[in-house]
């Protein structure tokens, strides 16, 4: 169906067969946990413990445990929220938009990226609840019928839109990710030797039979969910940006925010995917599936979105000058030269300057350079949100209320803790779930893999082209 240029670099290297794919992906699920994984999980659990302690302090004593004050009512909480939501963008983007655009290179990274999305959104969703003064009443932000008469939520409030946007995004992402996992769970189920594993994966695979009808439905649902998720990729961060854009605070009240936030989210999401992928492919020996081609493609997206973000930063300054609004002008001069100049310049360095290095092909294709730059981007994007939130709030209209913000150990603990939570979830995922979508990689194997001579293990199943829904073949049961 599709014409694939012979010049194009193969997406799967090493001359893999369908069986190799199954073996390579299932290996870590079926093998005993290795030491490196266990050590990593131990570190992540320490982070998770920090999270639990910090959350306990926050919930038990109050938000006063954080460094917020009368002037700066949001700081690390919402910074972390936006940061995690941003990170949570890549998964769905890769799975949904790239699926719709028939980008076949996405197949080997979409699983991990989607998992990352789910976990990042879980981490993100902690903050809107934790940052409430009375989190035990968090359900009041839902438009639930109640006995209080005409009491209802305020549909004017962007925070309410957030509730809808995040919960929808999370639900759709979760379902999308899980549907994709079902055929692979079935594969693992069929290979499982222990009774617990067999039972567990049987439940997880929802009784997947691999019939043509099942594949047909699988593909249909994937496509529908991709269609549903695509606008969500754009809407979530658009709505998150409206938390700021619809306010009256100089530095927040900016119409450029929606596209700027979406670009920033994809930027940070791709950076985080890369950070994780570079480790995962190494640790799980998946270099043939997550190839330099993947990394390079993603680096190109990073250049694009990083440049959009950079242009947005400059546009903000231009508009501040062009508007001649003194509060607006001061807000931006204060960002660059005020007491939080270091945060601003960290952001500029990490987000605008470092990604430009990817114009150089050697850097783009260097694992070490990519890893370092993606870490920079992660840091830079955290600072971007910090700059937007804290430096806008700390000096707004009336100079009498100007104040500084400094985080407490609990602030830091909650943030570090969510990273611990994230990695705990991610490591559990990486161990017990197939990190690469076997079914979809197999589907592109024929068209996009590197041939190795001689073929000693001719595939005995028909290949699928991309995710085209009409080429459904039962392959999951024929792996052994």
């Amino acid at each position, binding site marked *: 169906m599709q014409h694939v240029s012979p010049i194009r670099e193969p997406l799967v290297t090493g001359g893999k067969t369908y069986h190799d794919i199954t073996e390579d992906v299932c290996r870590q699920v079926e093998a005993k946990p290795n030491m490196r994984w266990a050590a990593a999980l131990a570190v992540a659990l320490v982070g998770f413990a920090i999270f639990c302690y910090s959350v306990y302090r926050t919930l038990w004593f109050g938000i*006063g445990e954080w460094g917020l004050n009368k002037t700066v009512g949001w700081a690390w909480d919402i910074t972390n929220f936006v940061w995690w939501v941003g990170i949570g963008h890549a998964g769905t983007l890769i799975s949904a938009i790239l699926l719709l655009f028939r980008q076949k290179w996405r197949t080997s990274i979409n699983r991990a990226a989607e998992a990352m999305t789910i976990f990042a959104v879980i981490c993100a969703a902690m903050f809107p609840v934790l940052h409430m003064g009375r989190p035990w009443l968090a359900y009041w932000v839902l438009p639930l019928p109640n006995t209080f008469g005409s009491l209802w939520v305020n549909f004017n409030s962007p925070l309410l839109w957030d509730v809808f946007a995040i919960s929808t995004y999370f639900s759709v992402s979760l379902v999308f990710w899980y549907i994709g996992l079902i055929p692979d769970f079935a594969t693992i189920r069929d290979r499982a030797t222990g009774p617990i594993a067999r039972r567990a994966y049987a439940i997880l695979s929802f009784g997947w039979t691999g019939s043509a009808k099942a594949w047909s439905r699988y593909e249909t649902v994937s496509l529908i969910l991709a269609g549903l998720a695509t606008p969500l990729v754009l809407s979530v961060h658009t709505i998150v940006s409206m938390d700021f854009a619809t306010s009256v605070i100089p530095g927040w009240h900016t119409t450029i925010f929606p596209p700027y936030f979406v670009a920033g989210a994809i930027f940070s999401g791709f950076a985080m995917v890369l950070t994780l992928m570079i480790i995962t492919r190494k640790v799980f020996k998946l270099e043939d599936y997550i190839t330099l081609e993947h990394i390079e493609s993603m680096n190109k997206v990073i250049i694009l979105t990083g440049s959009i973000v950079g242009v947005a930063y400059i546009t903000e300054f231009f508009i501040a000058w062009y508007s001649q609004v003194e509060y607006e002008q001061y807000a931006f001069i204060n960002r660059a030269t005020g007491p939080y100049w270091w945060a601003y310049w960290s952001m500029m360095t990490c987000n605008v300057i470092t990604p430009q290095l990817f114009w150089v092909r050697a850097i783009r294709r260097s694992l070490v350079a990519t890893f370092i730059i993606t870490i920079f981007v992660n840091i830079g994007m955290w600072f971007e949100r910090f700059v937007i939130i804290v430096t806008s709030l700390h000096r707004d209209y009336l*100079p009498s209320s100007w104040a500084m913000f400094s985080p407490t150990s609990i602030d830091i603990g909650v943030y570090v803790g969510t990273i611990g939570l994230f990695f705990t979830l991610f490591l559990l995922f990486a161990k017990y779930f197939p990190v690469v979508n076997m079914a979809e990689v197999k589907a592109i194997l024929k068209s996009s893999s590197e041939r190795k001579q001689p073929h000693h293990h001719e595939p005995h199943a028909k290949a699928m082209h991309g995710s085209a829904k009409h080429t459904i073949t039962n392959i999951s049961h024929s792996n052994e």
Partner: protein
Amino acid sequence: MQDRIKYWKGIEELENTPEFAKHAHNEFPEFLPINEAKGESPSSTVTAPRRDFLKLLGFGLAAATLASCEAPVRKAIPYLNKPVDVEPGVANWYASTYFSHGDYNSILVKTREGRPIKIEPNPTSSVTPLGTSPRAQASVLNLYDNNRLRAPFIKGKESDWAKLDREVMSKLSSVNGKVVLVSSTVISPSTKQLIDEFGVKTGNFEHVVYDANSVSALLGANGGVIPGYDFSKANIIVSIGADFLGSWIAPTPFSKQYIQNRKVSADKKDMSRHYQFETILSLTGANADVRVPIKPSQELALVQALSNSLGGGGSAPAGIDSKAFAAAVKDLNANRGKALVVSGSNDPAVQTLVASINRTLGAEGTTIDTAAPYFVKQGNDAQMLRFIDEMNAGSIGAVFFYKANPAYDHPLADKVVSGLKKVGLTVSFAEIMDETASLVEYVAPDNNYLESWNDFEPKKGFLSIAQPAISPIFTTRQMQDSLLTWNGSSDTFYDYIRNNWRKVATGDFNTFWEKSVHDGVLESGATMLRLNPAAATAAAATTSARPAASGIEAVVYEKIQMGPGYDANNPWLQEMGDPITKATWGNYITISRSDAEAGSIVQGDVLRLTTTGGKTIEAPALIQPGQAVGTVGIAMGYGRTLDTMPVAKGLGANAFPVATVANNSVFFNGPVKQLEKTGATSEIAQMQTHHTIMDRLVVQENTLAKYVENPKEVTEYIRLTTHAGKVKPSTISLWDDYEYKNHHWGMVVDLNSCIGCGACTLSCHIENNVPVVGKAEVLNRREMHWMRIDRYYSAREHKEGEYDVMEHPADNPTVIFQPMMCQHCNHAPCETVCPVAATMHSSEGINQMAYNRCVGTRYCANNCPYKVRRFNWFAYANNDKFDYNMNNDLGKMVLNPDVVVRARGVMEKCSFCVQRVQLGKLEAKRENRRPKDGEIVSACAQSCPTDAIIFGDMLDPESRISKVLAREQGERAFHVLEEINTQPNVTYLTKIRNLA
């Protein structure tokens, strides 16, 4: 089944009577009509009970669950016999008087269910009809201070009155030496008379009067009284170090007078001009039109030069701004008979000269009412110093301390401490175990003033009464009753005052007395107070008694909220920001920028100040714009170390040792031998840390000249540029306007009247049960005040857009105050962003907070351009981390029952005192009428001593606020941040300065 052994239920079954057979299929044959309704269907007999059972089970489970989450039982005990004048839910008001260390206020005490909860001004009084001082406002909490003495103490052990009376009387009868009663100024005629009678009874008696912040020299230069200053009559006011709006003599009446001649309107386009020569930047200096920093050692030279110049000839002394001096001289000369010169110096030579200058200017009879001098300070330094010597010499047999704490607040406190050991009988009447009380043998705790009868004469011919608003909470006894007991009288002090007042009664005494108690004041011109004879003999000198100074000079000053330190244990006052520095919880050494830079001192560096007398104190440095170069300032009242004053303990340093004693006078300044950094740092809890306006149009001021020329040009109005030209921001809007049908509440704040004293902030704090959060939380920028006074200094010279320069205040800045509270925007940014609609607009224009609905996202606070919203970061009530009045049963008695105590995690803010609005409307409704203008007043407006705040209904065209708004529209009325189109219901009036 059939072969099972059958057990009969009873003989009926065996017999199987028809009766039994009829009911046999029913489990409870006779009693339970369970199936009456559906009995016809056989299946229902089985299913219905099961369903019912499940229903009951479910209900029972739910009920049990609900019951287990029920709030703990709180006891509310109803009146068994309702007192005649107590209606639950209805406030009673009693006229009374607050007087403490010069701070005089005629007040109304609001009581609810028998508890005094709020102090308001007594409009019947002509001395203080308009507002109260912050300390008077806060005094109601002293009543509920958990650290008050609850019983008499003998040698540090709790005792009873009978034993104390017995021992004191027996020791008095065999006293060996002089009997002395040491007090601060007593302006109670009856108390004064009683003390005299006590003296007659004991024989060899002296009543020593001293003031912690003494004006002895002023008294000496004016025949033992304070001249009857009337600032309202002065066109030109020259003050040399007298902080008459904040701490000098009687700030509440002075503020009222001062502002009378400062208010401007289209009908009255003139105002007084105020020159201030001073060392520290005082509240008064901040309000001056022309302010010149001088050193304390320059005061005499300045006054001499002024005196000489008024006679023609004479010029500004070296080091003093000659332009300002010449302008002051010119203005004084041109306004003879309408000018007033005051000095805060305690140097007899200065005060003698000032008195003669005022005579030269023709002030007597015009700006000084010679018929009505003030009595609020009568302390005589020389007498006190002599007493301390006598005590150390062992010639004092007995000493009584009444509202006096010389072991803390006298510069020679250590000599007081050593002298006390040589006195046979030592008694203190302190309400709280203060420094002196902890050293004496007998503590006979006085009642709080709200539990006492008393009378006052603050000003000649102006009498007032204090009546108890509550019975004594503890087994304390009014000092006067103690004296009566020890005099052998069986009268109560109430009888005593009543008898005493017969002297001034007119007509039927009972009617006269009832009316006097009801009104709280008697202003018939009758006078009763017998002055302290020693005050009149205070030194009047023409040569300076002040020791010569070189190098850095230190000034000890009094803060408006702390006074000399008697209220230091009051958390409301500790948390109130200083009007100038905005600092709370402690004192500090104010130092000028150039001195700080010279010593490479930054704010918060702890400095060790060593006086030439060898005393040292340590306090953090605060860089104070306006501070005279070469001087430092430190406030009195801090540095308490006693465990019996836990709120005040450990805050700041005691400044009294810095005051110098020389030539029988106490000087509240002195040379500094050494000022050095200790290397430590200590943060100062300031509520405002950015001090300049950054060239923003948030607060507006202009000059009188401009105002006279064209009042329409003194205020800058922001207009937005549209295709149709420039328009008012409010004409462009995304939102529909609210329709107000009944009332539209609004507020006007006249920046020209506001002196920045902060009485409103405290009044608001008390009225609305705002929590106290303590120093650490103020440092975290989490103070809870619903209302604040923004204080801006003018910036250094800068060009437009030079932000880094304009961040720094000028070295001698002009100061502007802006009371800031919720602006109750008609298009409120906070209302749109709350996800749960916890904050919304009322049908009367008030931006409301529904605390119960708030989930605490703080989005509203972030989106508030005025930053007036306050968040409950912690539970501030019943929390040991915030061990203030909301953490003990006694302290909670001060809470206003009309206002809820907010829970942890909710947002709060100014409500326009909605409880007062509702009360006013209800009362009007009950009387079937509309609320009258002036009937509903917010707490801030009520307590303002200068009438700077007007609250009212903007829909009523006859209301005062409507008239002011109509008059000032397009002239001085402006909204803060008009360009963001929040359309506030609070309007400000531009400040006008009468620059020289």
